[in-house]
Protein backbone atom coordinates (compact mmCIF):
# COMPACT_ATOMS: atom_id res chain seq x y z
CA UNK A 1 0.00 0.00 0.00
CA UNK A 2 1.44 3.40 -0.92
CA UNK A 3 2.55 5.62 1.95
CA UNK A 4 0.33 8.53 2.86
CA UNK A 5 2.75 10.99 1.31
CA UNK A 6 2.85 9.14 -1.99
CA UNK A 7 -0.91 8.75 -1.87
CA UNK A 8 -1.45 12.50 -1.84
CA UNK A 9 0.41 12.79 -5.13
CA UNK A 10 -2.33 10.77 -6.84
CA UNK A 11 -5.34 12.59 -8.16
CA UNK A 12 -8.46 12.64 -6.03
CA UNK A 13 -10.15 10.29 -8.49
CA UNK A 14 -7.39 7.75 -8.00
CA UNK A 15 -7.47 8.11 -4.23
CA UNK A 16 -11.24 7.59 -4.27
CA UNK A 17 -10.86 4.50 -6.44
CA UNK A 18 -8.20 3.02 -4.18
CA UNK A 19 -10.15 3.59 -0.99
CA UNK A 20 -13.44 2.26 -2.32
CA UNK A 21 -11.96 -0.69 -4.17
CA UNK A 22 -10.14 -2.07 -1.17
CA UNK A 23 -12.94 -1.49 1.35
CA UNK A 24 -15.93 -2.50 -0.74
CA UNK A 25 -14.42 -5.28 -2.92
CA UNK A 26 -16.26 -3.66 -5.80
CA UNK A 27 -16.88 -5.67 -8.94
CA UNK A 28 -17.64 -2.46 -10.81
CA UNK A 29 -16.16 0.89 -9.82
CA UNK A 30 -16.48 3.96 -12.02
CA UNK A 31 -15.27 7.35 -10.84
CA UNK A 32 -15.95 10.38 -13.00
CA UNK A 33 -14.77 13.89 -12.19
CA UNK A 34 -17.55 16.31 -13.15
CA UNK A 35 -16.22 19.33 -11.30
CA UNK A 36 -16.24 21.39 -14.47
CA UNK A 37 -20.04 21.18 -14.53
CA UNK A 38 -20.26 22.92 -11.14
CA UNK A 39 -17.41 25.39 -11.35
CA UNK A 40 -19.79 28.34 -11.73
CA UNK A 41 -22.21 27.72 -8.92
CA UNK A 42 -22.58 29.85 -5.78
CA UNK A 43 -20.86 27.64 -3.23
CA UNK A 44 -17.87 27.11 -5.50
CA UNK A 45 -16.90 30.77 -5.74
CA UNK A 46 -13.35 31.37 -4.56
CA UNK A 47 -12.26 27.77 -5.13
CA UNK A 48 -10.26 26.40 -8.03
CA UNK A 49 -13.24 24.34 -9.13
CA UNK A 50 -11.09 21.24 -9.47
CA UNK A 51 -11.75 17.77 -8.09
CA UNK A 52 -14.84 18.92 -6.22
CA UNK A 53 -17.70 16.93 -7.74
CA UNK A 54 -17.65 13.28 -8.72
CA UNK A 55 -20.08 10.72 -10.11
CA UNK A 56 -19.59 7.28 -8.61
CA UNK A 57 -20.96 3.97 -9.78
CA UNK A 58 -20.21 1.09 -7.44
CA UNK A 59 -21.34 -2.51 -7.62
CA UNK A 60 -20.40 -4.40 -4.48
CA UNK A 61 -21.65 -7.43 -2.59
CA UNK A 62 -21.18 -5.46 0.63
CA UNK A 63 -24.29 -3.44 -0.23
CA UNK A 64 -26.48 -6.50 0.05
CA UNK A 65 -29.25 -6.03 2.59
CA UNK A 66 -28.43 -2.36 3.11
CA UNK A 67 -30.88 0.47 2.48
CA UNK A 68 -29.84 3.19 0.04
CA UNK A 69 -29.15 5.57 2.91
CA UNK A 70 -26.86 3.00 4.56
CA UNK A 71 -25.04 2.32 1.30
CA UNK A 72 -24.42 6.00 0.70
CA UNK A 73 -23.28 6.45 4.31
CA UNK A 74 -20.77 3.62 3.87
CA UNK A 75 -19.31 5.45 0.89
CA UNK A 76 -19.29 8.81 2.66
CA UNK A 77 -17.57 7.28 5.70
CA UNK A 78 -14.85 5.79 3.51
CA UNK A 79 -14.30 9.15 1.83
CA UNK A 80 -14.49 11.27 5.01
CA UNK A 81 -10.91 12.56 4.57
CA UNK A 82 -11.62 13.63 1.00
CA UNK A 83 -14.81 15.40 2.09
CA UNK A 84 -12.80 17.34 4.68
CA UNK A 85 -10.21 18.39 2.12
CA UNK A 86 -12.13 19.88 -0.76
CA UNK A 87 -14.39 17.15 -2.09
CA UNK A 88 -17.72 18.91 -2.25
CA UNK A 89 -20.33 16.53 -3.63
CA UNK A 90 -20.83 12.98 -4.79
CA UNK A 91 -23.50 11.47 -6.98
CA UNK A 92 -23.62 7.83 -5.98
CA UNK A 93 -25.11 4.80 -7.71
CA UNK A 94 -24.68 1.87 -5.33
CA UNK A 95 -25.88 -1.55 -6.42
CA UNK A 96 -25.30 -5.17 -5.55
CA UNK A 97 -24.22 -7.67 -8.23
CA UNK A 98 -27.67 -9.29 -8.07
CA UNK A 99 -29.40 -5.98 -8.73
CA UNK A 100 -27.32 -5.26 -11.81
CA UNK A 101 -27.71 -8.73 -13.28
CA UNK A 102 -31.46 -8.66 -12.67
CA UNK A 103 -31.89 -5.68 -15.03
Amino acid sequence: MASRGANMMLSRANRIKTKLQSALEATVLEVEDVSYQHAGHAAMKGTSGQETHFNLKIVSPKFDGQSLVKRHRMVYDLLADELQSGLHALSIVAKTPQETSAK
Partner: protein
Amino acid sequence: MSCACGVKAIRLQVQLHTCSLRPPRAPPSQMLSALTPSLPSMPKLLFPYKPQPRPTLATAPLRCFSALTPELKSTLDKVITSNKVVLFMKGTKELPQCGFSSTVVQILKSFNVPFETINVLENDLLRQALKEYSSWPTFPQLYLDGEFFGGCDITVEAYQSGELQELLEKTMCS
Protein backbone atom coordinates in the same frame (compact mmCIF):
# COMPACT_ATOMS: atom_id res chain seq x y z
CA MET B 1 -33.85 37.93 18.92
CA SER B 2 -32.71 41.28 20.38
CA CYS B 3 -29.77 43.27 18.98
CA ALA B 4 -27.72 42.52 22.11
CA CYS B 5 -27.97 38.78 21.49
CA GLY B 6 -26.87 39.28 17.89
CA VAL B 7 -23.83 41.34 18.96
CA LYS B 8 -22.87 38.72 21.55
CA ALA B 9 -23.15 36.03 18.91
CA ILE B 10 -20.81 37.91 16.58
CA ARG B 11 -18.23 38.44 19.35
CA LEU B 12 -18.38 34.81 20.39
CA GLN B 13 -17.89 33.64 16.83
CA VAL B 14 -14.88 35.93 16.35
CA GLN B 15 -13.29 34.45 19.47
CA LEU B 16 -13.84 30.91 18.35
CA HIS B 17 -12.95 31.19 14.69
CA THR B 18 -10.72 33.63 12.95
CA CYS B 19 -11.22 32.04 9.59
CA SER B 20 -14.18 30.77 7.69
CA LEU B 21 -17.27 31.77 9.69
CA ARG B 22 -18.97 35.00 8.68
CA PRO B 23 -21.04 36.93 11.20
CA PRO B 24 -24.60 35.61 10.84
CA ARG B 25 -26.83 37.77 8.67
CA ALA B 26 -30.49 38.24 9.47
CA PRO B 27 -32.18 34.96 8.49
CA PRO B 28 -35.04 35.20 6.01
CA SER B 29 -37.41 32.79 7.64
CA GLN B 30 -38.74 32.64 11.15
CA MET B 31 -37.73 28.98 11.28
CA LEU B 32 -34.07 29.80 10.73
CA SER B 33 -34.05 32.56 13.36
CA ALA B 34 -35.41 30.00 15.81
CA LEU B 35 -32.39 27.82 15.14
CA THR B 36 -29.76 30.31 16.16
CA PRO B 37 -30.71 31.44 19.70
CA SER B 38 -28.29 28.86 21.03
CA LEU B 39 -25.31 30.76 19.58
CA PRO B 40 -24.86 33.16 22.54
CA SER B 41 -24.84 30.28 25.02
CA MET B 42 -22.36 28.11 23.11
CA PRO B 43 -20.04 26.31 25.57
CA LYS B 44 -16.37 27.32 25.73
CA LEU B 45 -13.88 25.15 23.90
CA LEU B 46 -12.35 22.57 26.21
CA PHE B 47 -9.05 22.45 24.37
CA PRO B 48 -6.83 25.09 22.80
CA TYR B 49 -7.75 26.14 19.29
CA LYS B 50 -5.04 27.66 17.14
CA PRO B 51 -6.32 30.16 14.60
CA GLN B 52 -5.63 29.02 11.05
CA PRO B 53 -5.01 31.20 8.01
CA ARG B 54 -8.25 31.77 6.13
CA PRO B 55 -8.93 28.57 4.22
CA THR B 56 -10.94 28.18 1.03
CA LEU B 57 -14.64 27.60 1.37
CA ALA B 58 -14.20 23.91 0.71
CA THR B 59 -11.85 23.22 3.66
CA ALA B 60 -13.69 23.35 6.95
CA PRO B 61 -11.39 23.95 9.96
CA LEU B 62 -13.87 22.33 12.31
CA ARG B 63 -12.40 18.90 12.90
CA CYS B 64 -11.82 19.48 16.59
CA PHE B 65 -15.07 21.38 17.20
CA SER B 66 -18.65 20.17 17.23
CA ALA B 67 -21.13 22.63 15.76
CA LEU B 68 -24.04 20.58 17.05
CA THR B 69 -24.76 21.94 20.51
CA PRO B 70 -27.47 20.24 22.60
CA GLU B 71 -29.69 23.29 22.16
CA LEU B 72 -29.30 23.25 18.40
CA LYS B 73 -29.95 19.52 18.32
CA SER B 74 -33.21 19.89 20.19
CA THR B 75 -34.26 22.78 17.96
CA LEU B 76 -33.56 20.66 14.88
CA ASP B 77 -35.56 17.81 16.45
CA LYS B 78 -38.49 20.21 16.75
CA VAL B 79 -38.13 21.50 13.18
CA ILE B 80 -38.19 18.06 11.59
CA THR B 81 -41.06 16.79 13.72
CA SER B 82 -43.29 19.84 13.40
CA ASN B 83 -43.28 19.75 9.60
CA LYS B 84 -44.08 16.64 7.58
CA VAL B 85 -41.64 17.43 4.79
CA VAL B 86 -38.46 19.39 5.53
CA LEU B 87 -35.69 20.08 3.07
CA PHE B 88 -32.32 21.46 4.18
CA MET B 89 -30.95 22.89 0.97
CA LYS B 90 -28.67 25.41 -0.69
CA GLY B 91 -30.71 28.44 -1.57
CA THR B 92 -34.46 28.78 -1.19
CA LYS B 93 -37.50 27.07 -2.63
CA GLU B 94 -37.97 30.05 -4.95
CA LEU B 95 -34.27 30.38 -5.79
CA PRO B 96 -32.22 27.22 -5.35
CA GLN B 97 -28.47 27.79 -5.57
CA CYS B 98 -27.35 24.30 -6.41
CA GLY B 99 -28.43 21.82 -9.08
CA PHE B 100 -28.97 18.98 -6.62
CA SER B 101 -31.11 21.12 -4.32
CA SER B 102 -33.04 22.43 -7.28
CA THR B 103 -33.82 18.89 -8.46
CA VAL B 104 -35.29 17.89 -5.12
CA VAL B 105 -37.36 21.08 -4.93
CA GLN B 106 -38.80 20.38 -8.37
CA ILE B 107 -39.64 16.81 -7.42
CA LEU B 108 -41.43 17.92 -4.27
CA LYS B 109 -43.30 20.66 -6.14
CA SER B 110 -44.50 18.11 -8.68
CA PHE B 111 -46.32 16.27 -5.89
CA ASN B 112 -48.04 19.46 -4.72
CA VAL B 113 -47.24 18.72 -1.08
CA PRO B 114 -46.50 21.53 1.36
CA PHE B 115 -42.84 21.49 2.38
CA GLU B 116 -40.55 23.63 4.47
CA THR B 117 -37.09 24.58 3.22
CA ILE B 118 -34.11 25.84 5.20
CA ASN B 119 -31.25 27.57 3.41
CA VAL B 120 -27.95 26.29 4.83
CA LEU B 121 -25.95 28.87 2.88
CA GLU B 122 -27.31 31.52 5.26
CA ASN B 123 -25.56 30.09 8.30
CA ASP B 124 -22.25 28.20 8.29
CA LEU B 125 -22.71 26.93 11.83
CA LEU B 126 -26.07 25.45 10.95
CA ARG B 127 -24.57 23.93 7.83
CA GLN B 128 -21.85 22.14 9.82
CA ALA B 129 -24.25 21.15 12.60
CA LEU B 130 -26.65 19.55 10.13
CA LYS B 131 -23.87 17.37 8.70
CA GLU B 132 -23.36 15.95 12.18
CA TYR B 133 -27.05 15.82 12.99
CA SER B 134 -27.91 13.83 9.86
CA SER B 135 -24.61 11.94 9.62
CA TRP B 136 -24.65 13.13 6.03
CA PRO B 137 -21.91 15.35 4.64
CA THR B 138 -23.76 16.95 1.75
CA PHE B 139 -26.87 18.92 0.86
CA PRO B 140 -29.74 18.73 0.07
CA GLN B 141 -31.06 16.66 2.97
CA LEU B 142 -34.68 15.58 2.90
CA TYR B 143 -36.60 14.67 6.03
CA LEU B 144 -40.00 12.96 5.80
CA ASP B 145 -42.15 12.59 8.90
CA GLY B 146 -39.24 13.35 11.20
CA GLU B 147 -36.89 10.86 9.59
CA PHE B 148 -33.92 11.39 7.32
CA PHE B 149 -34.88 10.17 3.86
CA GLY B 150 -31.81 10.94 1.76
CA GLY B 151 -30.09 13.35 -0.55
CA CYS B 152 -30.68 14.10 -4.21
CA ASP B 153 -29.71 10.69 -5.64
CA ILE B 154 -31.92 8.76 -3.26
CA THR B 155 -34.84 11.15 -3.80
CA VAL B 156 -34.54 10.88 -7.58
CA GLU B 157 -34.36 7.09 -7.46
CA ALA B 158 -37.37 6.89 -5.15
CA TYR B 159 -39.26 9.32 -7.40
CA GLN B 160 -38.56 7.20 -10.47
CA SER B 161 -39.54 3.96 -8.75
CA GLY B 162 -42.77 5.38 -7.31
CA GLU B 163 -41.60 4.77 -3.77
CA LEU B 164 -41.46 8.48 -2.98
CA GLN B 165 -45.06 9.03 -4.02
CA GLU B 166 -46.23 6.21 -1.74
CA LEU B 167 -44.18 7.51 1.13
CA LEU B 168 -45.45 11.07 0.68
CA GLU B 169 -49.06 9.90 0.58
CA LYS B 170 -48.50 7.90 3.73
CA THR B 171 -46.76 10.86 5.40
CA MET B 172 -49.45 13.39 4.50
CA CYS B 173 -52.25 11.11 5.68
CA SER B 174 -50.67 10.19 9.01
